[in-house]
């Protein structure tokens, strides 16, 4: 009997392993099958981002918006007459997994990469892509180093630019005289914004009275940081961090009866979609973002309504970045007449030239559209939004 049990458990374990392996295989062959089965040449665009893990909101938004853009492009006849195919891989906001995902996509035959979504993995993948001379456009990798190689461009603002713009916005609109900052020193996005913010603050009419850090291993208890900001008499707290921690800070500040103004960057976007989050805590929170879902121009409204219909969710700024990114790839490919039979390296060279010549009138663009410089940085104007009655409203 005892032996029988043992055999049974081994069999069950074996069955589980086989079952899992089966899953992996079938999903892989699913994507490659449709590629080889279609017969005609197509553009193979890879995507990488966190679909699971703590930053999943961003990866999921980018994935959905990229699919949406590609469906539109394909319905309208594709790029230079060729259809576009997407293979999107999960990296869980982890550099190592991101490089693995990149290699998976390379095996699949990727010709250009729209990714990755978050900064730390993006830097790792950018180095791989530079070695292969693979064209890469990150929708939202905002760290300076993300576009250090000349094959990489981005749609969003860089971290220093966000820090700079935030400091200028707070200063010019006289939002506060004493500012506290709570930032994640283990994260390149957050510390990048903070450094530039602190530098620019010297030129502005406010003073940083407390600069408190936390790390990824220590991101639950913010009572100390809040207490220090309170003791320093800060009337505005600048939060260049992601929304998960921001929601905790808002809650803990509320519990201790501290009610300053809060100001965030694009990482704060998503705070309203945290399940069961008491949105009244976020009332009055300001953030700098290039996209506001309630903007009244036709392009934004069309995008928002299609996105809602398809995915049942209001698109955030990451979705808009990805949507613009896909159209930027299209414009760059069309400007240089790229075809799918070109080598990866040739496509990259052509796209690099194309990117500097195009203007994309996208969702995140403002009135003058987005243009790119050869070092990969976009030129566009930032917008500030304020959370009112549980929704983003453009700030006047």
């Amino acid at each position, binding site marked *: 009997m005892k032996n029988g049990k043992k055999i049974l458990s081994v069999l069950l374990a074996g069955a589980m392993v086989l079952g899992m392996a089966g899953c992996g295989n079938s999903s892989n062959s699913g994507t490659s099958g449709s590629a080889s089965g279609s017969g005609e040449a197509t553009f193979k665009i890879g995507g990488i981002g966190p679909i699971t893990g703590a930053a*999943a909101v961003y990866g999921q938004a980018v994935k959905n918006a990229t699919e949406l853009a590609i469906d539109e492009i394909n319905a309208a006849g594709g790029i230079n007459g060729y259809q576009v195919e997407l293979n999107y891989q999960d990296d869980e906001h982890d550099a190592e997994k991101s490089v693995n995902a990149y290699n998976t996509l390379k095996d699949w035959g990727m010709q250009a990469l729209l990714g990755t979504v978050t900064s730390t993995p993006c830097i790792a993948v950018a180095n791989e892509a530079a070695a292969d001379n693979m064209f890469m456009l990150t929708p939202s990798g905002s760290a300076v180093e993300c576009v250090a190689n000349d094959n990489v461009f981005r749609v969003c603002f860089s971290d220093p630019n966000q820090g700079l713009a935030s400091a200028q916005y707070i200063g010019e609109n006289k939002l506060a005289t004493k500012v506290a900052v709570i930032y994640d020193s283990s994260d390149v996005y957050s510390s990048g914004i903070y450094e530039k913010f602190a530098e620019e603050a010297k030129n502005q009419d406010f003073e940083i009275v407390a600069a*408190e*850090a936390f790390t990824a291993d*220590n991101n639950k208890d913010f009572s100390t940081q809040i207490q220090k900001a309170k003791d320093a008499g800060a009337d505005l707290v600048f939060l260049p961090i992601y929304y998960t921690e921001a*929601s905790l800070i808002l809650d803990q500040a509320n519990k*201790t*009866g501290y009610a300053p103004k809060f100001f965030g960057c694009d990482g704060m976007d998503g705070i309203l979609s945290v399940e069961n989050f008491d949105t009244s805590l976020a009332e009055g929170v300001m953030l700098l973002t290039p996209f506001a879902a309630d903007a009244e121009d036709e392009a934004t409204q069309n995008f928002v309504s299609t996105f809602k219909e398809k995915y049942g969710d209001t698109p955030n700024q990451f979705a808009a970045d990805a949507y613009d990114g896909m159209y930027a790839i299209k414009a760059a490919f069309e400007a240089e007449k790229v075809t799918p039979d070109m080598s990866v390296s040739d496509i990259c060279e052509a796209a690099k030239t194309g990117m500097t010549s195009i203007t994309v009138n996208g969702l995140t663009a403002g009135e003058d559209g987005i243009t790119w410089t050869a070092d990969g940085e976009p030129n566009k104007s930032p917008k500030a939004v304020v959370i009112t009655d549980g929704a983003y409203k453009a700030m006047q």
Partner: protein
Amino acid sequence: MSFLSYLINGISLGSVYAIIALGYSMVYGIAKMLNFAHGDVIMIGGFVVFTATSATGMNPLLAVLLSVVVCTVLGVVIEKVAYRPLRNASPLAVLITAIGVSYLLQNVALLMFGANPKSFTSVVKVPALNLVGGDLIISGETIVTIVSCLVIMAALSMFMKTKPGQAMLAVSEDKGAAQLMGVNVNATISLTFAIGSGLAAIAGVLLCSAYPSLTPYTGSMPGIKAFVAAVFGGIGSIPGALIGGLILGVIEILSKAYISSQLSDAIVFGVLIIVLLVKPTGILGKKISEKV
């Protein structure tokens, strides 16, 4: 005044660590294994309460009871399926199994609840305490956490005097001899896991009420910190878990407040190393000489 407020925050954080550390300590003391899945049982406890209150609108206190029941059953099942067959295997094999169970729980939760953080509605309805004209505010969560920690410690100490408690002590001293004296070792170890996991559910509720963000990874870092607290106080000792947890929480908060908010973890672990160098069994740990 702010020192007092830091101290109270430290004690509150430390109390959560202490309750989690109890689970580690009891299981280690009796089954001589490190149950690394403990932190993830906490997370499951949090999700049970979250789902029960937000989906079915259940009374929060009932939801906490439900969560204790679910976690207790889960703990017993994990022990029976994953650890009992390895009772006589090398400690390393059991350790790896525990890490495996931990990842299994995280990924099952990821599959069931998704990766998006959920905002946990605090089950604590105690009003905040306003002292010294509003300069010192102690939140209801802090009060409840500290009180529950003390109550649980007292209850466990009393439980150890009862017959099943004595059986636990006997098993922890010598499994073989306890069995010869008529103690049902398997039942005793199951009971240990049941109590440890039930406590994990309560710790989960308190953790999520104080820090209301719930993801499948919520339990892992507090779990590791609590494990450190258990080692700090002397693993296997119930008062040790309390003292270890409190000291850890207070050092963490005070070093954040007065030294550097970035270095707090380094300081916490540095103190741990010093304590272990001076007293390798932890603050209240007993030195057990190897029998020849």
